[in-house]
């Protein structure tokens, strides 16, 4: 049992370790920063329904893992979508554990068919001319079962969607401050990220046109897609900065979804995805902040583009790419995180986990600039024994 003072010392050690690695210095040892989502529920004895629908239980589960594992940093709640909030607003696109899907399955995003996309193909000008107005007046009435569109008769449920949604969101966001403090004081653990960003292209694909609709648009109306991405850029930058760490120690999370080969081709990446994301990252860098590229899927085709960014402006998280190859390509310029395959942690034996981590430390982490984590967020299929083995082997081999 650590005293309060020891916890604070532990916190400062971990913060130094974590931030040094991100800024290309060599810390005392390899930091461990696992993005544990529904794994926390499994470990703490909750269902996926409980941690998705009652964020207090998600917070508790995150703290219990942080206290029991020797981790340097965690996300304050990686089961980020509080489905109590999404239900209060009436959002249609979630599959909620215990309601639409079994109680012990992680929440799902349900993308509508191309014909039922939340944004129609002829609405690009509306979005581009006034993104915020479009979201309130057109998008929200479509994605919410309760919100009525301007011009339609208002309704009690519509009014309540805004009232309950606004108050619940404030309630949730305000709960993060005490949660971050609790992680620090009770566990000596650093809160790993602050603020959220997505590429304009990904926002169009995820929440507006859908992936299939957007792919059609890339061929039928590419200029309108580009103009829409440009119109989204300042709002996405503003939102990212408004949630960023005021101390400028931990990065803003960039969640990268469908902007890579083969979802789009190299030319579309070069003409559209990257030119409407890169300036946002550069602007964030000018504010003294880093961005964590949480590169879901495979992004090896685009590593040359990322090298255009200023040194240490990003931390590059490896999901399904070969972490050894990514390190050779961009490891001199950016800190690398992740790369430990989820299938290894879910289905293989602890000895295989140890063997992989040993090689990872030897080849990728030898000069610093590496943060240990799985490739993707860890759900409840991850083996507790394997995650313990990952932690132990990184600690054993990862001392500089």
């Amino acid at each position, binding site marked *: 049992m650590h005293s309060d003072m020891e916890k604070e010392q532990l916190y400062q050690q971990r913060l130094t370790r974590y931030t040094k690695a991100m800024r290309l210095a060599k810390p005392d040892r390899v930091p461990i920063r696992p993005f544990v989502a529904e794994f926390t529920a499994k470990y703490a004895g909750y269902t996926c329904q409980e941690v998705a629908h009652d964020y207090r239980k998600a917070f508790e589960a995150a703290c219990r893992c942080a206290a029991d594992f020797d981790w340097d940093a965690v996300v304050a709640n990686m089961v980020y979508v509080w489905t109590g909030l999404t239900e209060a607003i009436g959002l249609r696109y979630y599959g909620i554990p215990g309601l639409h899907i079994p109680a012990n399955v992680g929440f799902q995003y349900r993308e509508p068919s191309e014909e039922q996309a939340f944004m129609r193909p002829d609405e690009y000008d509306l979005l581009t001319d006034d993104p915020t107005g479009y*979201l309130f007046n057109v998008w929200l009435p479509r994605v919410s079962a309760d919100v009525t569109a301007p011009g339609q008769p208002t309704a009690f449920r519509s009014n309540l969607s805004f009232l309950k949604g606004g108050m619940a969101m404030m309630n949730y966001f305000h709960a993060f401050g005490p949660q971050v403090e609790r992680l620090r004081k009770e566990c000596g653990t650093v809160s790993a990220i602050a603020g959220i960003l997505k590429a304009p292209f990904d926002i169009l694909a995820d929440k507006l046109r859908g992936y299939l609709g957007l792919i059609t648009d890339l061929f039928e109306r590419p200029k309108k897609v580009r103009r829409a991405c440009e119109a989204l850029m300042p709002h996405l930058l503003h*939102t990212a900065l408004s949630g960023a760490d005021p101390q400028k120690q931990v990065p803003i999370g960039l969640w990268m979804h469908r902007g890579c080969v083969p979802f789009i081709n190299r030319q579309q990446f070069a003409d559209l995805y990257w030119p409407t994301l890169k300036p946002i990252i550069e602007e964030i860098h000018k504010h003294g902040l880093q961005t964590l590229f949480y590169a879901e899927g495979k992004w090896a085709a685009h590593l040359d583009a990322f090298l255009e960014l200023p040194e240490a402006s990003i931390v590059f998280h490896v999901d399904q790419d070969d972490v050894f190859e990514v390190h050779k390509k961009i490891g001199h310029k950016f800190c690398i995180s992740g790369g430990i395959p989820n299938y290894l942690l879910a289905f293989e034996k602890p000895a295989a986990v140890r063997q992989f981590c040993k090689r990872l430390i030897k080849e990728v982490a030898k000069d610093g600039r590496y943060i240990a984590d799985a490739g993707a967020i860890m759900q409840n299929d991850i083996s507790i024994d394997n995650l313990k083995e990952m932690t132990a082997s990184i600690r054993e081999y990862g001392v500089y």
Partner: protein
Amino acid sequence: MQEKTEIRKPGVCIPWEEKRRELGPIQGDEQVFQTVWEEVDGLAHLYIWQLLLSF
């Protein structure tokens, strides 16, 4: 009805300039009204963009 207001900048839903025209003469300190209006208005921008990004 699609409300058409002045171009909505990041962080803004109803610009202060638009609200100011509705208020008429101000007897006290206009800056106080503007600052608080913009702070609270910014929460509405945060609401819709966080819905889009996070939820």
